[in-house]
């Protein structure tokens, strides 16, 4: 009895949470007049796969997706690299003003993107980067959060390993890449997934520094695809499915890293 009750509650909640997603997928396969039919269709008996190709080609999602992959991918690579470098310096090296610079890194976490928006757009325009990949990528090359996360991970590498490597003949660069980075793989994985997710989902910044489809990302592309007329509503649904798919795949493949990345700093331990 109790088990049945539990399953009932779980199923009801699952249906509520999944409802928008399921409707989106079903509607993407229906004809526009079927979507408008009341009561609504529950199953597409004649799936309209062409709405996907329409979204990809006429809706330019192919282009937007490529832009998103390039931008989010490069931001991720850049953030991981700068974070590895900075974290290594903070974890393994002695240098003047170490504490001060650490606080500077910490301070960047307190400056939200909104306050820097107006000036950063001016900077990007002044640099001639308006409406280019550079405008979308360069401002996000460094991550204070990433430096923290990796520094914490690097600090768990025993000092003895650094000493052993020094005796074995490994300088800082080789120690970093041969020992520290492999040992910190879980943290680096979490940071990568987290950075990619954040970069992929960006909306406001890409909106104000791009104006042509050639560099616009998928999130901004969806804005264009937002249908107001009934005859392309199926394409809109197909487009949202396509736009969500990469992150869904990421979620399935890297669930552990994603959870670790999302909850970093949240749960004590």
């Amino acid at each position, binding site marked *: 009895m109790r088990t049945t009750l539990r399953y009932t509650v779980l199923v009801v909640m699952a249906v509520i949470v999944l409802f928008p997603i399921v409707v989106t997928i079903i509607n993407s396969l229906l004809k526009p007049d079927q979507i408008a039919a009341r009561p609504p269709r529950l199953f597409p008996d004649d799936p309209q796969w062409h709405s996907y190709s329409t979204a990809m080609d006429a809706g330019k999602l192919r282009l937007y997706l490529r832009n998103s992959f390039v931008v989010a991918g490069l931001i991720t690579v850049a953030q991981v690299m700068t974070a590895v470098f900075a974290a290594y310096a903070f974890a393994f090296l002695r240098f003047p003003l170490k504490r001060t610079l650490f606080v500077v890194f910490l301070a960047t976490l307190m400056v939200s993107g909104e306050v820097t928006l107006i000036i950063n757009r001016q900077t990007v325009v002044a640099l001639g980067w308006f409406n280019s990949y550079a405008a979308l990528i360069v401002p996000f090359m460094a991550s204070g959060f990433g430096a923290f996360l990796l520094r914490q991970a690097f600090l768990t590498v025993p000092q003895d390993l650094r*000493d*052993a490597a020094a*005796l074995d003949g490994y300088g800082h660069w080789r120690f970093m890449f041969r020992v520290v980075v492999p040992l910190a793989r879980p943290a680096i994985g979490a940071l990568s997934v987290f950075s990619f997710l954040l970069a992929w989902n960006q909306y406001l910044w890409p909106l104000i520094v791009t104006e042509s489809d050639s560099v616009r990302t998928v999130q901004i592309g969806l804005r264009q695809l937002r249908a107001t007329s009934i005859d392309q509503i199926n394409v809109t649904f197909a487009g949202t499915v396509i736009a969500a798919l990469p992150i869904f795949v990421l979620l399935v493949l890297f669930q552990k890293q994603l959870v670790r990345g999302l909850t970093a700093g949240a749960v004590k331990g």
Partner: protein
Amino acid sequence: MALPDTREASSDSGRRPRGDVRLTGVTKRFGDVVAVDALDLEVHDREFLVLLGPSGCGKSTVLRLVAGLEEASEGTIEIGGEAVEGFEAKDRDVAMVFQSYALYPHMTVRRNIEFPLAARHVPKPERDAAVREAARALDLGPLLDRKPAALSGGQRQRVALARAIVRQPLVFLMDEPLSNLDAKLRVQTRAELIELHRRLATTVIYVTHDQVEAMTMGDRIAVLTDGALQQVGPPQEVYDRPANLFVARFIGSPPMNTVAGRVVDEGEGLAVAVGSATLPLPAATSAAVAASGAAEVVLGVRPEALTIDGGVLPATVTLVESLGHERLVVCGLETGDLVIVRTPGSGEPFRSGDAVKLSAPTAALHVFDAATGDRIDG
């Protein structure tokens, strides 16, 4: 085990590099803390020297200074007759075995062992041969493709040794390499290390706080406390003739009994008064005490030298610990000092509260200046 004495094989014995280490006036300060204080120490070529001392005495710092992981504040360090100041750790031709073993967790045993050779761009065939030799010497053959996490403590320790010997360094530095092993394995590995040293014929500087390791393994022992050298010598000499009260109390288990006393002139020689009893000193010691002019001394006597047989020292039994083959009888003297007497396991029964009389042979008495703690000796 096979004998991989590649050093002997690969170099002419006449031109074999010297592996002696000499520290002269070496001082290391960390801020205001003096970790090593004006240390003079000479480690002979091929010698097994044990640096012994309580934790925090600076012995590990000495090792790190020789390794080049720390740079001395003052003084010079020579390895093989060459001053090494300014050379980085990798350029000092020394290998180190860490207490934690410091194995790279993400690499197989094989990669761990060849890591120092890869760093020096040794060609692959030579590298493989060296790894094979080292693995053979330490019985690691079947474990080469495992990761450290899949090894037992003893196996990890052997990998750490293999990584050290594969480079064929001039000097081995070992920082408490046995302290993470359980008691039984420690005894066994002790013997293996001695054997390994004999075969490799390389200088070893071995740091430990365990006096049993020091006594059983060292050609010589250097006793350190508070960053200062107390005594250097072969184990038996350090045991028989401790240079000062610290060494006397640190080496030996149970430790040497020490009792404060006053020097009195007995006519035919000096003696030491302890409570109501008077213990005469041997002639040579007597002359030395007279020459030093000390009036207050500390008498030392090892537990096995004391006997409960109606001697001159009145005492009361306070505790009897039976270990089977022997008993440790703790007695309180009139002065309030507690002394330990080591007696055979069987024999006259002693009970707490018994009044007894102790005797100590004159020859077994150690005399220390109460003011300086230094040994007074003939």
